């Protein structure tokens, strides 16, 4: 239900216009209260630079921040090695968010009861809305240099219950043979996406990820092509002196970043290349492309136990192919506005499309064992998507974010499936305001609204449409120290 409608129901209708004006005044006061933006923890403490030097708005990198990252978290000024730092310097940042959010999901299948009965007697479809105070997980970011041209990043990350996993663990050899064109990274790391999901400026459940980076067609069993997930592997990347030209090539285990080899012997390649252009007052524009090409298991060695026949971890074979490729553009319109663009053309093997793939996590429903044949007419699922993310940066401390994403199925794996089944469209708007930042800590008041629409994924129950709309509003304090 719309917020204003709720206010009217509660008898506040006459107060509503004043509320708008008061909101404007509050916004004015908050913005007028701006203090100087300073540096953020970890790297900022080391170099004494303001957060705004490297971040368009923390945590999203700007061009200079991207260059710093590409140099292996080095300014290349002969003061990069930790030996130059005060021995008490500890390159760690903690990040967590207390929030209030309201999540509303349409067309949820729920039980119905008849009067006097305690057992469900039927089903119905209704919207379910939940709101309340909540927490994000806790991230421990630690990274930097071990020595000049030896850098590292370790990120233990918890879910909101405090259960930890390693989101990032990597070491990097920088500027091999004195050349910025050759840097080698080993470990678990974020793929070299120019528009980084790990540095996303939005936080809601659906708006806090790039749908394009995680899209899996309905019924598809391939979890391995999620380019937004950190992956285990080896990356070679390089760039020229001012980072105008950059490339990367990664060899990844096809396990979606899961440790202990739970899947099988399969590998994926991820490749990027981009070129930036100096366009005078407009800024530096960058265009590039990426391609993810890999194989992943669809067949599993099984073992019968008390719970029946289960796939053996590490027993994946029957590798089948998948690919994602697209264009990336970062367009700047002066100091205050920019537009980030990512497109994707994706394709999975027909085997994935028919539900073969990740049996270990139960994502896939079928096992491609010897003698299995694909259903007649089964085809590779193919889709196309685009992501548009404009930003308006009022000042380094205040940014307005918008996003539009849509993913459209071009070809369903099973003939006869509605063309639009599983299509996604989502809009996100957000505002991040940093009333202060120091070289010791950072703080942002974050407000966001996300709306996501998915075709055909709701229950039908005789309805004309089974499309599902989900929305979320979130407000909270994003802080690190």
């Amino acid at each position, binding site marked *: 239900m719309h917020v204003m409608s709720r206010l009217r129901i509660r008898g506040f209708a006459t107060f509503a*216009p*004043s509320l*708008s*004006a*008061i*909101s*404007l*005044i509050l*916004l*004015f*006061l908050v*913005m*007028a209260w*701006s203090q*100087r*933006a*300073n*540096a953020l923890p970890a790297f900022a403490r080391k*170099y*004494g*630079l*303001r957060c*705004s*030097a490297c971040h368009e708005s923390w945590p999203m990198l700007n*061009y*200079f921040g991207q*260059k*710093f990252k590409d140099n292996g978290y080095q*300014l*290349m*000024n*002969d*003061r990069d090695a930790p030996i*130059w730092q005060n021995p008490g310097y500890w390159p760690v940042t903690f990040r967590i968010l207390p929030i209030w959010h309201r999540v509303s999901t349409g067309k949820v299948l729920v039980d119905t009861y008849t009067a006097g009965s305690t057992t469900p007697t039927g089903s119905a479809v209704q919207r379910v809305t939940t709101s309340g105070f909540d927490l994000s997980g806790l991230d421990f970011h630690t990274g930097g240099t071990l020595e000049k041209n030896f850098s590292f990043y370790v990120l233990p990350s918890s879910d909101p219950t405090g259960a930890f996993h390693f989101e990032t663990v990597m070491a990097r050899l920088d500027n091999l043979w004195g050349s910025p064109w050759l840097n080698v990274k080993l470990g678990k790391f974020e793929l070299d996406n120019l528009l980084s999901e790990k540095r996303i400026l939005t936080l809601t459940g659906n708006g806090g990820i790039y749908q394009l980076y995680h899209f899996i067609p309905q019924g598809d069993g391939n979890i391995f092509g999620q380019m937004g997930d950190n992956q285990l592997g080896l990356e070679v990347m390089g760039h020229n*002196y*001012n*980072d105008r030209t950059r490339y990367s090539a990664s060899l990844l285990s096809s396990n979606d970043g899961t440790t202990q080899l739970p899947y099988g012997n399969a590998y994926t390649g991820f490749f990027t290349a981009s070129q930036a252009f*100096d*366009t*005078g*007052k407009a*800024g*530096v524009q960058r265009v590039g492309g990426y391609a993810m090409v890999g194989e992943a298991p669809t067949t599993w060695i099984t073992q019968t136990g008390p719970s029946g026949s289960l796939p053996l971890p590490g027993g994946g074979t029957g590798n089948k192919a998948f690919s994602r490729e697209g264009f990336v553009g970062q367009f700047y319109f002066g*100091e*205050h506005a920019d537009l980030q663009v990512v497109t994707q053309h994706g394709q999975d093997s027909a085997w994935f499309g028919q539900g073969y793939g990740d049996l270990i996590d139960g994502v896939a429903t079928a096992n491609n064992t010897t003698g299995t044949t694909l259903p007649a007419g089964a085809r590779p699922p193919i889709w196309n998507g685009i992501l548009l993310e404009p930003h308006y940066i009022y*000042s*380094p401390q205040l940014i307005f974010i918008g996003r539009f994403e849509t993913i459209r199925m071009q070809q369903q794996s099973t003939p006869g499936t509605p063309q639009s089944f599983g299509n996604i469209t989502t809009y996100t708007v957000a505002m991040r305001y940093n009333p202060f930042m*120091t*070289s010791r800590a950072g703080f942002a008041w974050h407000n966001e609204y996300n709306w996501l629409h998915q075709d055909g994924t709701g229950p039908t129950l005789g309805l004309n449409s089974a499309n599902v709309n989900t929305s979320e509003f979130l407000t909270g304090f994003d802080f690190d120290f």
Partner: protein
Amino acid sequence: MRTRLQKWTLLLGAVAFLALPLVSRAQLSNEQIKTWLNTPAATSHIGNITGHAPDAKYDYRRYCVGCHGELGDGNGENAKWYDPPMFPKPRDFQLAVFKCRSTPSGTLPTDQDLFDTIARGMDRSTMPQWSTFTKEQRANLVAWIKHFSPRWQTEKPGTPITIPPEPEVTPERIKAGREVFARVSCWKCHGVQGMANGPSAATLTDDLGRPIEAFNFTTGARPKCGDTDQDIYRIFMTGLDGTPMPSFADNIKPDEAWDLVFYLRTFMPQHSKERELAKQLNLKPVDPNAPAGQQ
């Protein structure tokens, strides 16, 4: 139907919102900005690019103000944490004294000098290489830097020194460079082996009395004002204003200057040709106690 109170509240809110940009400007304004920002001196000219100081305000605030300060006096909020000589203090633009110039000692640098410094950064300090900026951004920042000091209103930049074409490096030139190194007493600060351990090294301070280190040629580090042969030539012929490094333009002839460049490169690990020649010559460090002309 809205009450009068509601209407006034709405109006006040709208006015407050529309006044936002003005308030933000007020936070950044100061007397210097008002006085100099729109004068002809608050522009820069780099080739066919003209930089305008007002256009750099946003970039200066985003990238520079943390060290150089709102008033360009080198007292940004991070400056107090820099501990010279390991981390030099940020440049005070109000003094308009700059190390890296193509112009004679004591004169203002050219716009191109400042433009190059922004992209090159300052090694062995926290000044990064801002090579990610567009040329327009850098030109605007040069103009912005100039608006901080009245010197730019009353003085013109010096005339850049002329650097003759670089001759071929020969053993004879390296030996001649060694003589120059001894004659003008480079070793007193830089040490006889270029290791920044000369007898005066420990006592060096800049013009503001802060400790400062001589350049150690042997670590592979780049000189602050550039590492090309022309840059090295320029450094000792113009001096580094504000530091104990003087200009030797009156003591070293242009041809001798190239000899000295070649000799200095024998200390630098990134120049293997000169080091190899020095090894073949069995070149010994200069003797501080040797009589003049008898090195």
